[in-house]
């Protein structure tokens, strides 16, 4: 029988988020699904590189470590896991989790969703007339094709729901929409259809609200001093109903807070035109979202209207676009800021003499105005300043040369200079982002199930 309430938690907002948060969610229980988001644009390119070196790599390794900790309690409590931890190699990720399950003596069924990774198909797609033009510049992908590191379509959430339909305990995907991790269990449990635009919109908004973990439960809250026990902050839970209405909350006994203001802040996060939030599954009008206080740490969300999905998927492509490096020095004592400005001048003048040329450089004074420029209130005679210098360009040797010019300041510049730890800044590859669109008809997803 179909459920009339499904409880979906997010335990990971990005790769690098708290490793203990998902464990705490499972221990406290009272949830049906645990969603985990590991992927960002840069992550995909790193994973493609790892996979090129080792065909068994290219997924979020943290996820396997986490599964070792929670597979048994999840199985016992009936909590199903949905994670985009597969990166560019979901099947390798599945094999590692299966190995972990066998070692633990836990029987699990794992489904993978594939088909988002179009890197191996780029020649075929371009040959078939897909320009994969940059949504920012309009340039066709063929301009930079030999520098492309990764290319993934944000696939429809129905593929994830299909994976849940197999009865899998754990669903591992590559690139899907972030809110899709939360929407998928609603489609699966409530039997929503591909043209249930309002409900799909509601489930997508639910996912949008919890996809960044603690950012909806008191993290980053404007009136931060009012948030109780942030050090014990709970992660968000959505209680979803078949109608599309849902409650945003957190587990009892955890720190942080969930109120209308906290949920509003997160709705506004990374928003573009609110009248047309385009996802793979529908288009949402964020001006229809209604919020209501529903008791302590509970917010009711309702009234959401959606409209038909577009006929394209967004594609996230990463490509190699030169090199960069940045490094810093701490300058202290009398006239610290004046000394820091003199240090910067010395570095750039010396580099000019070497003939090293850069596309762009940056000179920032941390503690003074690096974040807010002239908006920052003037700091009069600070006790210390961190000077942060950066350079980028196509010429790796020039960036390398830049990295060698900071440390000499400790002995050759004004007095009171320190904090040169960690060695010379090394050139890093710049992984540039190339958003594009592809007709949905070009993408076919596959679900595969394996048991331990």
């Amino acid at each position, binding site marked *: 029988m179909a459920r009339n309430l499904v409880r979906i938690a997010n335990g990971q907002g990005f790769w690098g988020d708290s490793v203990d948060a998902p464990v705490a969610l499972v221990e406290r229980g009272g949830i049906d699904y645990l969603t985990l988001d590991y992927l960002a644009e840069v992550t995909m390119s790193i994973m493609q590189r790892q996979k090129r070196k080792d065909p068994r790599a290219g997924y979020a390794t943290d996820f396997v470590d986490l599964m070792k900790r929670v597979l048994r309690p999840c199985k016992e409590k009936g909590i199903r896991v949905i994670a985009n931890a597969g990166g560019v190699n979901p099947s390798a990720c599945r094999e590692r989790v299966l190995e972990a399950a066998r070692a633990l003596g836990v029987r699990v069924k794992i489904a993978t969703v594939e088909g988002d990774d179009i890197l191996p198909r780029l020649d075929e797609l371009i040959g078939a007339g897909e320009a994969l033009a940059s949504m920012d510049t309009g340039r066709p992908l063929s301009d930079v094709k030999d520098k492309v590191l990764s290319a993934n379509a944000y696939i429809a959430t129905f593929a994830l729901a299909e994976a849940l339909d197999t009865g899998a305990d754990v669903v591992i995907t590559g690139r899907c929409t972030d809110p899709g991790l939360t929407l998928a269990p609603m489609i699966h449990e409530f039997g929503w259809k591909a043209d249930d635009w309002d409900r799909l919109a509601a489930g997508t908004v639910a996912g949008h609200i919890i996809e960044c973990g603690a950012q909806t439960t008191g993290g980053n809250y404007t009136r931060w001093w009012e948030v109780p026990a942030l050090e014990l902050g709970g992660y968000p839970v959505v209680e979803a109903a078949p109608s599309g209405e849902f409650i945003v909350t957190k587990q009892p006994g955890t720190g942080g807070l969930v109120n209308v203001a906290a949920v509003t802040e997160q709705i506004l*996060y990374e928003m573009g035109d609110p009248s047309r939030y385009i996802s793979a599954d529908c288009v949402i009008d964020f001006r229809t979202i209604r919020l209501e206080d529903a008791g302590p740490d509970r917010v009711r969300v309702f009234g959401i209207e959606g409209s038909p999905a577009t006929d394209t998927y967004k594609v996230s492509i990463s490509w190699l676009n030169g090199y960069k490096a*940045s490094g810093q020095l701490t300058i202290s004592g009398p006239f610290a800021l004046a000394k820091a400005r003199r240090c910067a001048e010395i570095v750039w003048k010396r580099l000019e003499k070497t003939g090293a040329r850069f596309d762009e450089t940056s000179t920032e004074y941390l503690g003074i105005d690096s974040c*807010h420029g002239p908006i920052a209130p003037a700091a009069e005679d600070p006790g210390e300043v961190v000077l942060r210098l950066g350079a980028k360009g196509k010429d790796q040797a020039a960036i390398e040369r830049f990295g060698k010019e900071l440390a000499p300041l400790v002995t050759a510049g004004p007095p009171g200079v320190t904090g040169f730890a960690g060695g010379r800044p090394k050139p890093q590859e*710049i*992984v540039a*982002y190339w958003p594009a669109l592809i007709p949905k008809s070009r993408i076919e997803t596959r679900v595969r199930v394996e048991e331990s």
Partner: protein
Amino acid sequence: MARIRLHEIAHARSGDKGDSSNVGIFVFTQEAYEVLLREVTAARVKSHFGPLVKGRVDRYELPNLLALNFILHDSLGGGGSESLKNDAQGKTHGQALLLMEIEVPDAVLSRYPLRTAGPPPSAG
């Protein structure tokens, strides 16, 4: 009429979209929202951010949330991994907007439920 900083009445959050950042702000009463609509225009936000925003500023209205959303184009030095900036993702642009000064009628302020000058001394 009182001259206050936005942080005394508004909440904000910001994030990135490629080389643009977005800043959402909202207040808690309808009459304060009308003040926002009048005072916090795209042109004033553009001038508040000065050299931090190299492109244009777009403003969107969400009356259902008493909120405004601003897109600050070309404000992240390339954005993401391409940027040399300390704040490459515009995480702090919301806080920057809260430093903006606006004119608010005294009556709106006196009826406002949540005015604050900041954290109490014991907070941090």
